[in-house]
């Protein structure tokens, strides 16, 4: 559900504004031309931009943290495969912690375990081969 009260869809003008803002932010980022390969990457991306828009940190702070995370990986032993958005997520956690927006990493660990314990399609494994609703023609 979008944030508008008028219905299910978000407002096209707002969307256009958001698109321009985001494009401005991402055009000078490494990996900006890479599509997202996993849904969580898109979500992590959107969260980082949203927190910045809400004034929780300067974009440059986030970028420095991202660069730092990538540098650490480069200096490491290669034990972890490359994932741009894993660094993105780490940078997001760091930056939010530094800004005081989310300083409790234990709470995040707990909540993560909670999510893992709740399978997404837990109760939805039955193929349904008939329409769930038929609204007959009226004329």
């Amino acid at each position: 559900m979008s944030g508008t009260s008028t219905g299910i869809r978000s407002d096209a003008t707002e969307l256009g504004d958001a698109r321009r803002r985001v494009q401005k932010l991402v055009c000078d980022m490494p990996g900006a031309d890479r599509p997202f390969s996993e849904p969580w990457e898109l979500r992590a991306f959107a969260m980082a931009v949203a927190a910045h828009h809400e004034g929780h940190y300067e974009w440059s702070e986030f970028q420095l943290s991202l660069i730092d995370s990538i540098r650490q990986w480069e200096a490491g032993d290669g034990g972890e495969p490359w994932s741009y958005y894993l660094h993105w997520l780490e940078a997001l956690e760091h930056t939010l912690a530094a800004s005081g927006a989310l300083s409790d990493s234990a709470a995040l660990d707990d909540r993560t375990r909670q999510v893992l314990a709740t399978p997404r399609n837990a109760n939805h494994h039955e193929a349904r081969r008939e329409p769930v609703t038929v609204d007959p023609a009226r004329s």
Partner: protein
Amino acid sequence: MTVKPTDTALRSQEEITARVKALEALLIEKGVMTTAAVDRLAEVYENEVGPQLGAKVVARAWTDPAFKERLLADASAACRELGVGGLQGEEMVAVENTDTVHHVIVCTLCSCYPWPVLGLPPNWYKAPPFRARIVREPRTVLAEDFDFPVPDSVEIRVWDSSSELRYWVLPQRPAGSEHLSEDELAALVTRDSMIGVGAPRPVGAAA
């Protein structure tokens, strides 16, 4: 106070997904951001991660009757012919709109959705209002929430996707599109038209 860097060397996609979900839930609870703001930004990208693949499949079905037949018989196999497939694309069923029947897809319990064809589900698709109301009053929801009135002469069928069987809609080819190439046709196909809550773009409308 700083968060320690990742303390496990290798984390599964499932674990990372859960962590991102948990992070979002906490940030929203703390008022750091709103779901709507994250959704809006994600939506900016939504149309660059998926629906163009479904559009390619639809355009092929509009121009190649033999392919359309294969698509309606086994959507997953037909999509594979075009290199479209992968996670959440197993057991897909394409339902064809006609002059007398209009199809809509929903996942009544969660957000089962054919990712390879449509990309990531928009947030309203995952939200309780759509999931509940499209089943109860599809005609009203399409007209009022999506500004997409379906003529009274047309029957509406709502299909419930699950993790075992995912539906998507093959919309009708727009009137007056006979002269268009497959690529031009693909540009008329919208995500919403493949969910069944909108029409393809009319001929002449820019994508």
